C-alpha cells in the first residue's frame, strides 16, 4: 500500500530548491504544557523528516526569527527496522526516517506537522516512552522458554508454510503504530492500570507468534490466560486501523482473530475438563 502511493506521488516532480515549513508540537518534559513551533527548512533532493530535524537542531530558529531550543526526537536505524523514530506526521502515525519530503511536501511553502505519539507519555518534544508496550510483551510471555538445567534437544520440525507465516509476524518492531491508531487503546499515565487496559494489536500478534512456535507453545496456556482477562483480546473493537497503519504489513487482524479462536477453544476446554 505504502509503496503504491509513493510511486504515484513521485509522478508529480517535486520542485527543487524549495523551503518547507515544519510545524512541530513541542513539550519541555513530562507533565509540561505543549506548544507548537514552526521552522523553515531548505529541502534537498532525498530529504526525509530526520534530515530536516537535524537541520532544525543545527538551526533552532522559528519562522518568526526567535531562537529556541533544538527539537528532540528519538531515532535508531534510519531504515524502518527499529521503530524508534515513530511519530505522528500530518495527523497519521508512521516512521519519520522513511517519510520522504518529496512525497509529503512537493511544493514551495508546504507545511508538515510533526507530533509525538499521543498514546505514550512524552519524554521531550517528539520523543516518547514506550515502556508500556514492552511490559505488554512481558505480560504475554513473548519469548521461547529455553532456559533450563538440561539439554532440551533439537527444536521441533516446522513446515515452510508455518515458518513463512511466523516470519511475517516476527518482523514486528514494536514501533507502536498499531496502538497509536487504535480507538480502543488509550494513553494511561498510571502504570498500575496498564495490566488491565487494552493491550493492543502488537502484543496480541506476538502472543500468536510464540504460540505457533514449536517450543514457544509450552507457554500457550499462560499467554491465553493473560489475554482472557481485562485488557486482553476481548477489548478489541474490530476497527481494524492497526493492520492499515502497520509499516511491516503484518496481518494483525488475522492474528487477533487467531488469538480469539485460541481463547475460545481454551475456555471451552477449561469449562469441560476443569484444566
Amino acid at each position, binding site marked *: 500500500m505504502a509503496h503504491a502511493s509513493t510511486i504515484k506521488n513521485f509522478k508529480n516532480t517535486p520542485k527543487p530548491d524549495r523551503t518547507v515549513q515544519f510545524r512541530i508540537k513541542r513539550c519541555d518534559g513530562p507533565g509540561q504544557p505543549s506548544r507548537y513551533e514552526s521552522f523553515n527548512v531548505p529541502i534537498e533532493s532525498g530529504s526525509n523528516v530526520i534530515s530536516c530535524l537535524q537541520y532544525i537542531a543545527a538551526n533552532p530558529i522559528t519562522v518568526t526569527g526567535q531562537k529556541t531550543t533544538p527539537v528532540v526526537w528519538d531515532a535508531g536505524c534510519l531504515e524502518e527496522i527499529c521503530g524508534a523514530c515513530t511519530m505522528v506526521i500530518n495527523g497519521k502515525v508512521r516512521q519519520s526516517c522513511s517519510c520522504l519530503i518529496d512525497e509529503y511536501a512537493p511544493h514551495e511553502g508546504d507545511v508538515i506537522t510533526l507530533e509525538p505519539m499521543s498514546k505514550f507519555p512524552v519524554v521531550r518534544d517528539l520523543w516518547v516512552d514506550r515502556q508500556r508496550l514492552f511490559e505488554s510483551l512481558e505480560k504475554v510471555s513473548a519469548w521461547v522458554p529455553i532456559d533450563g538445567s538440561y539439554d532440551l534437544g533439537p527444536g521441533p520440525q516446522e513446515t515452510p508454510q508455518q515458518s513463512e507465516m511466523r516470519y511475517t509476524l516476527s518482523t514486528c518492531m514494536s514501533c507502536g503504530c498499531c496502538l497509536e491508531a487504535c480507538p480502543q487503546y488509550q494513553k494511561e499515565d498510571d502504570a498500575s492500570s496498564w495490566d488491565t487496559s*487494552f493491550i493492543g494489536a502488537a502484543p496480541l500478534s506476538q502472543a500468536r507468534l510464540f504460540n505457533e512456535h514449536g517450543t514457544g507453545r509450552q507457554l500457550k496456556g499462560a499467554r491465553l490466560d493473560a489475554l*482472557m482477562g481485562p485488557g486482553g483480546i476481548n477489548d*478489541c*473493537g474490530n*476497527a481494524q486501523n492497526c493492520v492499515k497503519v502497520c509499516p511491516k504489513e503484518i*496481518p494483525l487482524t488475522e492474528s487477533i482473530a487467531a488469538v*480469539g479462536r485460541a481463547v475460545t477453544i481454551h475456555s471451552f476446554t477449561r469449562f469441560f475438563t476443569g484444566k
Partner: protein
Amino acid sequence: MATQKNSPLRQHHFLLRRLHSLSGIVPIGVFLILHLTTNATILWGVLNSRAGSDMLARRVGTFQEEVSFINGLPALLLIELTLWISLGFHSILGVYYAFSGRPNVREYPYPDNWRYTLQRVSGYVGILFIFYHVATLRWGWSFLVPGGTQWSHNFAASTLAAAMQGSEQGYTVAGIAVSLFYFVGVSLLVYHFANGLWTAAITWGLTISEQAQKRWGFVCAGLGAGMMLLAWASIIGFATLDYDAAAEIEGAMHSETNIPAAAQSHADNTNP
C-alpha cells in the same frame, strides 16, 4: 477502566464479554429477523391470496393474523422477559464497553474505522429507539405518542399506523418525526446486527484469514440488505396505511356476527 480490583466485571470479564457477543445474536438477532418478517406482512401481505381479494384486506388481515398468533403463543411473557433481560444486558454492557473507545475517524478515515464508529452510534440510538418502541407499544406509555394513540393487539395495524402518523386522521408534524425516528432507528439496528454478526465471527475466531473475513462480510451484508428491505417495507406499509380503512377490516375480523373477509375466502377455498 476504573473498576475495582475484585469487581465482578473483572472476575468474569471473559464470560461477560462473550455473553455480550452471544446475546446480540441469540436471542436478540434471531428475534429481530422474526420481528421484521412479521411486520413486513403489512406490505407483502398483498401476496397472501387466502386473505381475500381486496389488497388492503390482505395486508391488514395477514398482519393481524400474525399478531394474534404471537399473542396466542404459550409462555409469551417468558419469551418477552428473556428478550427484555437480554436487551438490558446487551445495552448496559454495550454502552460500558463503547465508552472505553475513543473514535478517531477524523485522523484515520478508513471504511472499517467508520464501521466501528457507526456500530457504537447505532447502539446508542438503537437503545433509545427500542425503549421508545417498547414503552409506547408494549407498556402502553401513550403519553409519549403524539395524539395519544394506545396500541391494541386486536387493532394491530390501524393503531400502529395512527401511533406512527401522529393521529387517527393522518399525518401530523410530530407524526412525521415519529415515522422518521422509526426509519432511522430500525435502519441503524439492522446495521448494528449485520456488522455485529460480522465482528462476532472474529471475536469467536470463526473467520481468521482476511479472505474468510471478506467472504463472511458478503454473507452478513447480504443478510443485512435483506433485513433492511423487510424493515423499510414495514415502515412504508404502516406509514401509508389509512387508519379508518384498516380499523374496519380488523373490526370485521374480531366480530362474531360479521364473517371476516379472510375467513370467508378461506371457507370458499376449502369448501368448493
